[in-house]
């Protein structure tokens, strides 16, 4: 069908361009836009449906402030790890070792802070660096030695699981300094004293919603100015309002309990960073090109050996995930999950 729209002669191409009346075009474009983006909207709709289902089945427990807070506290580290994994998967590879590397870095953090009494700032920096180094080494094997990432990271998974056990000598180490624990289980401080509501958190949520709306509007204006196809105005407004509303609602729920967890802020910042890297920088662009068609990318002067480590490097565990969760390291891995060490 698409082949038809590029015929070299006017009759068919005018049909494809839709140079019919403006009104008809508008209706069609809304429908078409939905059709083209069904997959993206589909995922959102599915999410909403799942939430609705459990909200109903748990008789409202799901959306209770306490439960939401717990969900965020317990799962943020997975989102953070998945962010790093994003680049690896886009480049067409896989990292099986994230779980064990996460565990290893967690163990390292514990040993440094608890046994060697390091301050948490240098300890965290060392851990981040270490995670990055591990990613770069594994990526190097993939890029330079041309060993499939599956093999490299499968080995890495076993190696780092073992190293973590060795580092901890099979014991649980803790507790972490309370300042460091704040990172994982703390909440942002409240500047106002309103009874039963953490106003700062709510305002922050509202500010983010507003910022997103303004950003979206500017991007839309920019696209229109350059004549890029955009979604229909109605849909844009509806989407912005719904998202903004949801954001404010969630921050309200969280604010009515203890406020926004620190780890949520960290997660949000990382999401913004990764979004920027993937969509706006040349590095991100190169990774997408590598994943889309490696041969074409290479013939366009994009060297895979330079891309791979950088994407794998990004797959560091930004935070010693386990410690973020429990405030102490686990004595031993119970199940050998790929993404999680639990």
């Amino acid at each position, binding site marked *: *069908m*698409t*082949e*038809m*729209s*590029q*015929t*070299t*002669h006017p*009759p*068919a*191409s005018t*049909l*494809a*361009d*839709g140079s019919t009346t403006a009104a008809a075009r508008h209706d*069609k474009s809304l429908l*078409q836009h939905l*059709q083209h983006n069904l997959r993206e909207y589909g995922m959102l709709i599915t999410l909403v449906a799942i939430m609705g289902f459990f909200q109903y089945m748990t008789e409202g427990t799901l959306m209770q402030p306490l439960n939401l807070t717990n969900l965020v506290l317990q799962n943020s580290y997975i989102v953070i790890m998945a962010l790093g994994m994003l680049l690896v998967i886009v480049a067409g590879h896989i990292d099986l070792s994230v779980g064990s590397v996460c565990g290893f870095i967690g163990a390292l953090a514990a040993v440094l802070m608890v046994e060697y009494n390091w301050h948490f700032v240098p300890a965290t920096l060392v851990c981040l660096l270490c995670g990055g180094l591990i990613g770069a080494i594994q990526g190097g094997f993939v890029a330079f030695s041309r060993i499939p990432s599956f093999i490299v990271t499968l080995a890495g998974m076993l190696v780092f699981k073992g190293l973590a056990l060795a580092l901890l000598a099979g014991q649980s180490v803790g507790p972490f300094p309370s300042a460091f624990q704040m990172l994982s289980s703390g909440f942002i401080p409240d500047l106002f004293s309103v009874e039963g509501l953490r106003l700062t958190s709510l305002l922050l949520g509202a500010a983010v919603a507003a910022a997103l709306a303004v950003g979206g509007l500017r991007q839309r204006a*920019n696209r229109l*100015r*350059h*004549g*890029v*196809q955009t979604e229909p105005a109605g849909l844009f407004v509806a989407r912005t309002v719904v998202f903004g509303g949801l954001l404010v609602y969630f921050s309200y729920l969280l604010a009515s309990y203890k406020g926004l967890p620190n780890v949520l802020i960290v997660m949000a910042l990382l999401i913004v960073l990764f979004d920027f890297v993937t969509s*706006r*920088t*040349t*590095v991100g*662009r*190169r990774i*997408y*090109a590598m994943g*889309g*068609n490696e*041969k*074409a*990318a*290479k*013939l*366009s*002067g*994009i*060297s895979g050996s330079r891309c791979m480590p950088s994407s794998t490097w990004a797959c560091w565990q930004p935070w010693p995930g386990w410690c973020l969760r429990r405030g102490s390291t686990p004595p031993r891995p119970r199940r050998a999950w790929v993404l999680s060490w639990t």
Partner: protein
Amino acid sequence: MLLEMRNIRKTFPGVVALNQVNLQVQAGEIHAIVGENGAGKSTLMKVLSGVYPHGSYSGQILFDGQEREFAGIRDSEHLGIIIIHQELALVPLLSIAENIFLGNETARHGVIDWMAAHSRAQALLHKVGLRESPDTPVGQLGVGKQQLVEIAKALSRKVRLLILDEPTASLNENDSQALLDLLLELKAQGITCILISHKLNEISRVADAITVLRDGSTVQMLDCREGPVSEDRVIQAMVGREMSDRYPQRQPQVGDIVFEVRNWRAHHPQRSDREHLKGIDLNVRRGEIVGIAGLMGAGRTELAMSIFGRSWGQRISGEVRLHGQPIDVSTVEKAVRHGLAYVTEDRKGNGLVLNEDIQFNTSLANLPGVSFASVIDSGQEHRVAQDYREKLRIRCSGVDQKTLNLSGGNQQKVVLSKWLFTSPEVLILDEPTRGIDVGAKYEIYTLIAQLAAEGKCVIVISSEMPELLGITDRIYVMNEGRFVADMPTSDASQEKIMRAIVSAPPEALRAIPPKGDAASAAGRPLHGGRA
């Protein structure tokens, strides 16, 4: 009358793909369907084979005089209508026999009788004239032989109407001829054939009737039995206007030597003892269009790719000079920085990131050109893509359209814009018009002429000799990894080029591998995933 399609109309949202198409195929004839890319040939065949089931189109299909309503491919295959797609549907790791009977196994109670399959495969291979053991993995065969396996596969199913979609698009001259001979033989055995092709010389050789499609409608049906149909007449029907000149006129203004390659040697990437390029000297002057002619497997693509950042081969030696200065082209990045550009022959496999849009692909080779401090300026990127869209007249719904959905000619233009955006000084175009319709070809020739007029060096590699004769200033003839002739186009002819190839030095002749092998060896690193 074996097949009649009446008033077929098929629409997709926003587009009328087929409008009142009529097709009449007599039993026992070879019926050619021609038309520009996007004229609706493939869509028509998909309607016929049941890919688009009955009800999704309007009109009638009569086969054997009865109206048929196919709900799927199974129904049409059951009647003996078998289609061989342009992209071959063979499993490279399975053997010939396994591929032939894939989905149609010689089995009893679900257990495959391999002995029977083997002997039947042997008989079928004999029929199509392929001398290979049925146990050979298909991946080891060249494209030409794979095509024959496809036909054997079709024959294994009691075919009555065989549809071939551009069967010779990726074949060399010899294999194409062999395939056409086979079609004539099948015709003698009573098998009807529909042939979709861009190559008019092939069509005029084998076709009994020609149906011309344009913009989704039947324009004309020409009967070749009544008298020879001239190519010009077919072209005129295809493009709807008279093509007085297939190549643009130009006044070559050739200056000094700009680009030079000296004593270039390279070895096969897998077999380091096999020297594929045996000391090549090449030079291109400012504003000159130089052609490289040769048979498939002569090493033309290998030459281009090994020069372009050592993308092919190993143990490469030789010197590349630009304006008399030796330059380092050891990686693609460096080659691009020195102003080289290589437009690949395999635009889908090596040229485009198909899943991404036009702007993405346009800026790919020159990301710094659309970014500041590693941050991409999407507005700038859009402007650049839009600019090339207008300059090269790329037909698309917008520069944010995925390149996957473009027709061949427009995809080629996107690849060209990608390289033009690197502002190259030397352009190497490898089969720039492969699989492109006549109209788009003319546009690409015009563009090539324009580039030369701007003072760039253009090297055109092509298997179509008329094309080389039509657009170049000078032609190198390549055979067996070396240049065997260098002639100004003004006194070149197809005969001369062929003579240069066949009268290559005796040493080169001795090294000629068995037919088809050269093509497959050369093709493998490029078309790894194709089969």
